[in-house]
């Protein structure tokens, strides 16, 4: 599916500030995010990248300022991949079923989707293992599958490969590039290789501001 190129920003941030425990971690952020290309947010530790990403994904609220979405459905059909994968105390299958039940998918349809995707990634053998006991690479891959099962229009990724070895990093990077042809990707990354792979114009942050 060709992604529609829009002249308008799909997400607009206007004077966004975020205060956490008496400290401003985001200061007066003004930013337009467009549909084309992968948006990469980069910066040193503590720059406010993850905080900004969570605000964009509506996992938290700004202290002041506004975030406008061109289409509310965009954010309602979003996915988020955390730096450290979060799983319920269930099997891989159980976690994926839960995610699909949140999206209102019927059990039989969900089971089919899960089988299809796990087979595609050669992960059927871990379907009934505890998700919390997988290796970090397997966890991040399952986390990825969980997000794409929900058919998102926009995917937020918070340093998805920071804890992974080269092999899994390559797999995740390839999947991100494949997905970017059809959906909007916004990724936080500190990896020079990853930034170069995804964009020529990363959004650089420092001390809560865009530089």
């Amino acid at each position, binding site marked *: 599916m060709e992604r529609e190129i829009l002249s308008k920003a799909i997400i607009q941030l206007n004077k966004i500030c975020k205060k956490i425990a008496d400290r401003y971690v985001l200061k007066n952020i003004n930013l337009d995010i467009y549909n084309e290309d992968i948006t990469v947010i980069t910066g040193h530790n503590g720059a406010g990248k993850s905080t900004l990403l*969570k605000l964009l*994904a*509506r*996992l938290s609220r700004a202290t002041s300022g506004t975030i406008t979405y061109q289409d509310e459905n965009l954010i*309602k059909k*979003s*996915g*988020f991949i*955390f730096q450290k994968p*979060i*799983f*319920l*105390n*269930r*099997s891989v299958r*159980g976690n994926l079923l*839960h*995610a699909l*039940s*949140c*999206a209102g998918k019927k059990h039989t349809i969900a089971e089919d989707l899960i089988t299809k995707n796990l087979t595609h990634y050669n992960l059927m053998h871990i379907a009934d293992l*505890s998700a919390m006991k997988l290796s970090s690479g397997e966890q991040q891959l399952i986390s990825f599958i969980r997000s794409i099962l*929900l058919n998102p229009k926009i995917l937020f990724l918070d340093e998805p490969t920071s804890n992974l070895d080269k092999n899994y990093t390559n797999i995740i990077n390839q999947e991100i590039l494949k997905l970017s042809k059809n959906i909007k990707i916004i990724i936080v990354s500190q990896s020079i290789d990853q930034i170069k792979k995804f964009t020529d114009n990363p959004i650089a942050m420092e001390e809560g501001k865009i530089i």
Partner: protein
Amino acid sequence: MDFHLALMASIENILNLESDYIQIISTSLKVSLTAIIISFAISIPIASILATKNFYGKYFLIVLVNTLMALPPVVVGLLLYIVLSNQGILGSYDLLYTVNAMIIAQAILIIPILISLSQVTLERYYKKYNNLLLSLHASYVKRLFTLVWEAKYDLTINLLVGFGRALSEVGAIIIVGGNIAHLTRTMTTGIVLETSRGDLASAISLGITLIVIALFVNIILYSLKAYGERNIV
């Protein structure tokens, strides 16, 4: 009576399974189990909301719940007695000196405990899973159900604490139940009566039974917790 002889006689009482003895155990379990089920059904939704929502008056409610936890049982018994007596607002329901009055009394005592413990438990799970559940666009109700399900083993432990409290209750239930033989006599009120009568053997047999039941319940619930942690859904 010599303690050693009383102990021997109490064991004989237990092994003979006299009908009075069985009746007392049955009444105790019926009252406590019913009270804990009702308390759990009321406490969990309240605790879930306290753990996951901020609203005006929330902290006042938490302070109130914590204060109610420290309510003396005999005061609860007295207030309930006034309400349920013939001149009380619920006097027409003829609840005084019945097991239902005892269930109400125990529930009033256990509910604040379960709310407080469950709120702390669910807050922990909320902090752990809320971002994930938001990212999956789960509805608020779905999020609550998920948190309660994930916390089921820890909430079961809280249930155990509540059940222990219920089983050991004596002050409130002796006032509203009346400790009537074959009707509202429980293990704890029975111990009070038999000790005051000087029948140590009967008192000790009820005491041993109480401890054994509490131990049995603990074993079952901790086994369930261990089983649950080994076998992932």
